[in-house]
């Protein structure tokens, strides 16, 4: 009772004062918040205006990387002795969660601007002319490792299925629910291979059985594993990491 009376009287007599104190407190809190935001890159990065500038710069960098990409420039190739053993496992999940794909029932689904959309079985894919490369896989985290991949040249496969190579993008869906997409120029690069073997062995599950698209001109996360479907399209398909803020082009 007494407390309420006091509050009432305070409210009656010093409302303006309280408001002014509150205002000052609010100002002080805002200032500390501002200082905190400046100190903590996380909060600064979360700011909407900052985020839109950063995303805009990332799109600009996509375009610049497209201009810098030379379709005839080959990534360095290495001797067998340079291969990194053991080759590191990397995915958005741990090695104990690697998806096991049944090779017998497996089919590669095709969609979008493709003339022959008939799904491909593994024996059909293995029967295509194969080529090998020993190149450096560079992860967006900074580390790199050299591996040997073998498979069909992707540009040959695209020609075989009658893909519209004037389309902008190829999007990929994978058995581990991973998705990514690439530009057509990179898809047609001579070192872009649809690979079925790693170090001369059928791709083990941890390296992407039954197939990995290997592009030494792109960062590791752009090289999809366990591919189950691909689409040729002019509509930007995005991707698992790309949708979270990683640069889409991510070329090397």
């Amino acid at each position, binding site marked *: 009772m007494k407390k309420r009376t006091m509050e009432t009287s305070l409210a009656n007599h010093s409302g303006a004062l309280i408001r002014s104190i509150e205002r000052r407190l609010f100002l002080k809190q805002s200032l500390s918040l501002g200082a905190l935001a400046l*100190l*903590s*890159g*996380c909060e*600064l*990065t*979360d700011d909407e205006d900052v985020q839109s*500038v*950063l*995303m805009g*710069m*990332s799109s600009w*960098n996509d375009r610049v*990387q497209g201009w*810098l*990409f*030379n379709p005839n*420039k*080959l*990534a*360095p190739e290495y001797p067998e002795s340079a291969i990194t053993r053991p080759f590191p496992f990397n995915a958005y999940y741990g090695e104990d969660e690697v998806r096991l794909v049944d090779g017998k029932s497996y089919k590669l689904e095709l969609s979008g601007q493709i003339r022959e959309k008939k799904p491909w079985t593994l024996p059909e894919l293995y029967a295509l002319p194969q080529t090998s490369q020993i190149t*450096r896989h*560079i*992860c*967006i*985290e*900074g*580390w*790199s490792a050299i591996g040997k991949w073998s498979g069909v040249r992707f540009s040959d496969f695209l020609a075989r299925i009658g893909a519209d190579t004037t389309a902008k993008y190829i999007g990929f869906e994978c058995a581990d629910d991973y998705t990514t997409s690439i530009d057509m120029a990179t898809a047609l690069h001579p070192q872009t291979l649809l690979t079925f073997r790693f170090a001369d062995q059928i791709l083990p599950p941890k390296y992407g059985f039954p197939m990995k698209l290997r592009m*030494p*001109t792109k960062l590791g996360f752009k090289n999809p594993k366990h591919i189950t479907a691909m689409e040729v399209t002019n509509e930007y398909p995005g991707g698992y*990491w790309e949708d*979270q*803020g*990683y*640069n889409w082009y991510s*070329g*090397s």
Partner: protein
Amino acid sequence: MEAAQTQWVRVHPLVVRITHWINAFAILIMVASGWRIYNASPLFPFRIPNELTLGGWLAGALQWHFAAMWLLVLNGIVYVTYGAVSGHFRRKFFPLTPGAVFHDVREALRGKLAHEDLSVYNAAQRAAYLAIILCLVVLVFSGLAIWKPVQFQEIAGIMGGYEGARFLHFGAMALLVLIVLVHVVMVILVPRTFPTMFTGRARRAS
């Protein structure tokens, strides 16, 4: 006729003042975001405390790094072009001899380096500022080699390839940060140099 009570001496041209502060801002972003990127796959057995980094996580840090690189490079081109064409570099940084640098650094360490005319850099300053420019040039080119190890494989090649470029990039960053720390300490010790980087002028020592 000008009043004779205060005589001003021009210390820093406007272009130098503007590019200096843009550069400081760009380097702050590049270093803080770069440290976060380093933490994703450290080259050495230590990590940078996350509180000192920018970006919140790897993707955020990369966004900052690859946005601020444009600011750093474009601003750097303006500064270097101005410095070379206007004669600023020739006037301010030269002549420069190892003996003079050694002498002035020793004097500075003993707290005895006189610095009356702020418009003239002593040999220690000349060496430090040139070293910063050199570090930044190395950082830009090693950065290009890391960003595009295939498209710019010739640049990566002279640095020992992609992995070599990573070490060079880190080393040039470490040297740059060290020189900038010394630079800031010197400004704190000789505080009257600080306003000149805004106003461009200083009172002539009588």
